[in-house]
């Protein structure tokens, strides 16, 4: 692995060395390192590009790293990863994709992640996207995530895209059984001419299921963001979606929350706010000795933390 690939790996998965536990590292379209463990098995798909990750019931406190790095300009790929998480598991999955493009052709990673989460299992999923390189070719990522939550299960998903991705369309679909809970925290920053679209589609099918979709976004320069969040309450359930965005420079942001109750005991809330950094926040930090620009950086960093 060269230094650029190592840098990407560090950015998207905080990895400085080969991780502990199960992992699959995908580099320029090939699986370049893989490890299965006693409880977590990773196997390649035969008909399409991608892997199946099978986690045995009752697996506790184990982690799976599945980072993807693309450093070859013009590389385009479509990857299917399926996660089968057994009943009563408690696991952490760290995904992430880094694209370094120094050429003139677009580099593109489209990934479809499907999660089948067993009863009473707890999954923590962390996904970071990052782009680098000075090439005129785009750094494009289109992740699709589909989640089926079994009875009493909990999925906490943290999705982060802070820098360098030119174009992204992210779709996340989830259906929840009785007592299941989904918590999604999305943090997004766009700059330059970037475009980012994020669409959530959540079906609260089971009694006492709940979902909380939280997005914090910052759009700078001339970038464009669209956030759509659809929650359908099909049973006695609770759902909350919140989009909080800071707009800067000449950027453009749309927030489109949509909640539908198909059951009288569905309690659904949506909140969306877009605004620039409050002037008094900048003034407060300036009274502490920061310049206007430093103050702005601190406010944005805190907001996206």
């Amino acid at each position: 692995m060269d230094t650029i690939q190592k840098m990407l790996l560090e950015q998207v998965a905080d990895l400085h060395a080969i991780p502990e536990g199960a992992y699959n590292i995908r580099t320029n379209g090939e699986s370049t390192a893989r490890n299965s463990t006693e409880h977590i098995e990773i196997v390649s798909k035969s008909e399409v590009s991608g892997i199946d990750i099978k986690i045995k019931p009752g697996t506790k406190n184990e982690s799976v790293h599945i980072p993807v790095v693309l450093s070859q300009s013009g590389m385009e790929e479509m990857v299917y990863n399926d996660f089968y998480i057994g009943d009563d598991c408690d696991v952490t999955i760290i995904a992430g994709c880094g694209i370094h493009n120094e050429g003139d052709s677009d580099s593109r990673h489209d990934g479809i992640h499907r999660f089948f989460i067993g009863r009473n299992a707890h999954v923590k999923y962390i996904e970071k996207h990052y782009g680098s390189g000075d090439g005129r070719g785009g750094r494009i990522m289109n992740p699709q995530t589909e989640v089926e939550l079994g009875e009493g299960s909990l999925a906490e998903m943290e999705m982060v895209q802070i820098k360098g991705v030119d174009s992204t369309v992210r779709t996340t679909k989830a259906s929840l059984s009785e007592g299941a809970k989904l918590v999604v925290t999305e943090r997004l920053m766009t700059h330059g001419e970037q475009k980012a679209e994020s669409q959530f589609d959540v079906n609260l099918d089971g009694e006492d299921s709940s979902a909380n979709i939280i997005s914090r976004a910052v759009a700078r320069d001339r970038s464009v963001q669209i956030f759509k969040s659809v929650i359908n309450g099909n049973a006695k359930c609770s759902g909350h979606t919140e989009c909080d965005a800071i707009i800067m420079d000449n950027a453009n942001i749309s927030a489109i929350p949509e909640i539908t109750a198909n059951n009288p005991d569905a309690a659904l809330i949506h909140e969306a706010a877009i605004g620039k950094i409050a002037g008094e926040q900048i003034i407060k930090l300036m009274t502490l000795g920061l310049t206007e620009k430093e103050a702005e950086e601190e406010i944005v960093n805190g907001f996206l933390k």
Partner: protein
Amino acid sequence: MLELKNVSFEVPEEGMEKEIIKNISFVIPEGKFTVITGPNGGGKSTLAKLIAGIQKPTSGQILLNGQDITGLDITERARRGISYAFQQPVRFKGVTVLDLIRLAKGENISISGACEYLSQVGLCAKDYISREVNASLSGGELKRIEIATVLARGTKLSVFDEPEAGIDLWSFQNLIQVFENMHREVHGSILIISHQERILNIADEILVITDGEVTSHGPKDEILPKLLGSSSAVNICDGRK
């Protein structure tokens, strides 16, 4: 030492220039605890903002230790040793109490170091240090965190705009102790805008501003009895709006 020389501040109102501060001159001596008081709407908060650089005077000069700072912006004045506590503290999503104290201190101080400033303002530090400075905190809590940021800076001049507003009675004695300690330890000048008799009572000097002008300025022992003896003192001293 802070000196204001013939400072005026005007704002446009209905096509006219309205004078909020009218040709004010005074000196805040080094190491003194000065309280500015006076009726609401008299220009006290504007004066504090002029000193911190949040507003620029229409005319006149502001000098800090003999140097003209009139043209300096907020950041420059902060770096030269002016701190300013807001009357209504600002909220930040995502920025924690620890972040804010570190920014105030200008260095990455330890958590226990940051906690000391919170303890000084009567907050149980471990409950607050990692909380976000957002709407989940009450007005009184935000106010005390605001004061803690000024304590962390430890500058030569600290300006507090009505620190007692939004603080409950129970915490008030503690607040007075905070100011007494600052007076003892920081060896800088403290300038407080206040209506509270108990704050006026710990002042070295009192400056009364009415309708944009200094109507009296002198040692506490001289000014306070006059204020308490006047009919307007009732309003000034019990904080009645």
